[in-house]
């Protein structure tokens, strides 16, 4: 249901505080979209480590890479995107080279606030508009953007608005307004926020969803609560564990499993599970969009299997 709603769009933007597992959720979502027969592009932005590694693929530099049939990935480096833009705009190689080699250009790009974000969003718009074949059809059915976790909340999405104010005329202003209208178009774009069941991540997610709507006019369509501890004991067992854990329990439950250590782990799990419940409720109350819990993964290393399991959870949501 929720998945269908997201997959109907052209662009899904995943946002959230750092460390909440956006790239994991993004990859799972891409797998789910692919299972629905979509040609999907997962866009990462200047990530030091690509989510492609979860799929056992080699994160290649530059260009959209098909990591699984129908699933493409690209890591957009703002600098490269900017250089590409200069080359296209200058048209003449010599001029482009002169500009690209100019130290002023480098300094300007390194420091000009918002410019990298604007360039990246522009590139995303270009990818969205790309058509192939005859009759013309979109090159990608769905683009999933793993938005940078700068902690600056909205700033990434705010850039087109800021730019269209700062640059009232000319192509940059024009493009900024086009990007903005893509982001604001609920038919084409869905914003999804990712959080984990922790105070700060949840508070930030709620604030983010609120201000995206108020300040930018972008509505949040889904909230993913990642790393949820799910019930593993009955209510009676939980009570028993908490009572036992408060005492000194000798002996082992199995070879290499001291009872006391197992009870400590179980108590930790139970408290985290209660927190999960608490934050789920709080999110549901505060945000109008559907809230989707995704399980905490105890895997030593994330593999395609673990992600496929998450994709199935998305399917069921």
């Amino acid at each position, binding site marked *: 249901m929720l998945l269908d709603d997201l997959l109907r769009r052209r662009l899904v933007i995943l946002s959230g*505080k750092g*460390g909440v597992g956006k790239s994991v959720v993004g990859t799972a979502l891409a797998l789910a979209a692919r299972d629905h027969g979509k040609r999907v592009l997962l866009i990462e932005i200047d990530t030091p480590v690509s989510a492609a590694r979860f799929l056992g693929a080699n994160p290649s530099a530059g260009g959209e890479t098909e990591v699984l049939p129908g699933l493409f990935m690209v890591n957009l480096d703002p600098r490269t995107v900017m250089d590409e833009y200069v080359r296209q705009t200058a048209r003449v190689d010599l001029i482009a080279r002169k500009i690209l080699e100019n130290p002023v250009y480098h300094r300007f790009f390194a420091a000009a606030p918002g410019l990298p974000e604007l360039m990246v969003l522009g590139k995303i718009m270009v990818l969205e508009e790309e058509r192939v074949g005859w009759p013309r059809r979109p090159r990608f059915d769905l683009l999933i953007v793993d938005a940078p976790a700068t902690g600056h909340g909205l700033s990434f999405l*705010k850039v087109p608005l800021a730019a269209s104010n700062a640059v009232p005329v000319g192509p940059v202003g024009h493009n900024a307004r086009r990007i903005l209208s893509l982001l604001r178009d609920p038919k084409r774009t869905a914003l999804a926020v990712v959080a984990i069941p922790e105070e700060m991540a949840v508070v930030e997610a709620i604030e983010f969803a609120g201000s995206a709507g108020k300040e930018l006019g972008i509505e949040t369509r889904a909230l993913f609560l990642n790393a949820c501890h799910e019930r593993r004991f009955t209510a009676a067992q939980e009570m028993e564990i908490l009572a036992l854990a408060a005492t000194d329990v000798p002996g082992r439950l199995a070879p290499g499993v001291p009872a006391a250590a197992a009870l400590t782990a179980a108590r930790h799990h139970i408290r985290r599970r209660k927190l999960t419940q608490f934050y789920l409720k709080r999110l549901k109350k505060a945000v109008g969009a559907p809230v989707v819990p995704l399980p905490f993964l105890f895997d030593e290393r994330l593999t395609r299997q673990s992600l496929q399991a998450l994709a199935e959870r998305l399917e069921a949501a």
Partner: protein
Amino acid sequence: MSAPPHQALQDALAERRIIIVSGSGGVGKTTTAAALALRAALQGRRVLVCTIDPSRRLATSLGLETLSDRAREMDIRRFGPAEDGRMWAMTLDTKRTFDTLVERHTPDEAARRRILGNRFYKQVSSALAGSHEYMAMEKLLDLSADARFDLVVLDTPPTRHALDFLEAPERLMGFLDTSVLRWFLKPYFVAGRLTLKVATRTGAFFLKLADRVLGLQFLQDLSEFFLAFEGMYGGFKERAAQVHEVLRRDDAGFVLVAGPSALTLDESLYFHRRLVEREMPFVGFVVNRLHPVGEASAGRGPAPDIDDDLGDRLVEVFKDYRRLSKAEMRNVARLENETGVAPVLVPELEGDVHDLDGLDEVGALLVGAAAAPARRGRTRAPSVAAAGRGAAR
């Protein structure tokens, strides 16, 4: 380097005047910064903790509704601080700091108004990414000279690359270096209309291109901005040099915070390398949120009286935790091997930290003053207070 990890932090809290807490997003940086500050205050220092995070996380950590860019004193009396130990907290207001900087360096009222009213300036100085780092540095300089505090703990923005923060002053200077930019842009402003008389052909190309993509209006705003900054450049440069100096002082120090995952530890490793390269003072690593597995030596005595179903489930959960914990400890060992520095390890608590009591608990763990993580059996997170705060937001 040979000092035990807790001791290094403890010494820093006792002796340093600036502690910068850095790391990638979501590793508990803000909590660590606030907990260190509280700890130092309890030991008798006058401490300010400053967060530059616009999402006001520190406010959450401290259980405060609002935190302003004016230092506000926390009531820590119930923790029994030593002597004149006091604690203040504040957040950075990027725009206001930038405005103050401009006010300080502009020669006259007219110049001030020209900058503060400039369209380009308004965008640059408000919430756009990048300005936070610049202004954090600027504020740090201010605070380090404030006689009220003898220790400033600075939480840093969760930049993708924590290094952005270190390089902020240099990038700001590069950007504002009008001697070069002016060379391109002055003709616009001087003539007040489109003129392309610039010294070199590259300059002319640049202008043509800029005009094509940015438009004349923007270029005028931009050149006006740079012209207005012309008189301030010297002042800015001086400030940036001072920031640089402050960061290298012996009484400053960096605490690098990470989570137990390989990814965040990699980032800490990288950051550490850069600190060493730049000869910046390093205090220590903190690795937060390790999963607990209890003691391996336990397990003697008769088997407990637990029914089979519960026993099986307990074993299953334990194995999950142990697997995760082993992977985490491997990651930590790698950090230690590669840097020769043992990190301070902080177990994941059973509840969230969002008030002074929680910070006190974390602070104790950071300096090795508490053995058991769950000494007060914290299950208070889903409390009335927390729910109330959530509703008020």
